[in-house]
């Protein structure tokens, strides 16, 4: 069964550093998402991406965040200058059509020290 993959599984970085989280969505999917989950809390939407542009973003997704689909398979989330409060699990999701459910990747645990 096709699945969303994410790398790395765990990223430790120092405050102020840039990080890039990588996702490979399901190959024929057209809609891509990033969510985050702070430990013990609910999953929160960050950004959605369709047709090579951001279609929606939340208040969390400020100027420190950016997304890119650099080629036909990868979908990345960049945090330019990480803060302690960016520590969370980051989930990528993809969607084929509006009639389908979003498929989630296993997540990247980001720890900012």
């Amino acid at each position, binding site marked *: 069964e096709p699945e*969303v993959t994410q790398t790395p599984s765990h990223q430790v970085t120092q405050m102020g550093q840039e990080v890039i989280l990588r996702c490979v969505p399901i190959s024929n999917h057209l809609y891509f998402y990033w969510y985050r989950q702070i430990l013990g809390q609910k999953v929160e*939407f960050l950004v959605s991406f369709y047709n090579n542009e951001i279609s*929606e973003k939340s208040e969390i997704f400020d100027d420190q965040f950016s997304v890119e689909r650099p080629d036909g398979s990868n979908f990345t989330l960049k945090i330019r200058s990480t803060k302690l409060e960016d520590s969370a699990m980051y989930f990528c999701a993809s969607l084929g059509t509006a009639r389908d459910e979003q498929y989630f*990747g*296993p*997540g990247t645990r980001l720890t900012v020290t």
Partner: protein
Amino acid sequence: GESVGLHLPTLSVQEGDNSIINCAYSNSASDYFIWYKQESGKGPQFIIDIRSNMDKRQGQRVTVLLNKTVKHLSLQIAATQPGDSAVYFCAETLSGYSTLTFGKGTMLLVSP
């Protein structure tokens, strides 16, 4: 139940019992609802979905009920097994490709 702060409501059941997990959603315009299961250290896993033109949908061992009048969803798991132990989230969206808004989650603990 509803969660407060970092503490998830917890439902503890015995293996073989039926479990009911409840969720109150926020947007009366939402028309697509999904239940996700999240095991420790993993991403949300789709369980079952329902559209707003239905009030009940059944899957294998799971049933979702939707009450639009009071904006309430429930997930019923029949003959609960230890492998069902996880955090369960409901999610709502305005359309199939729109962003998901997740509920606060309920932890289900199944003891043998």
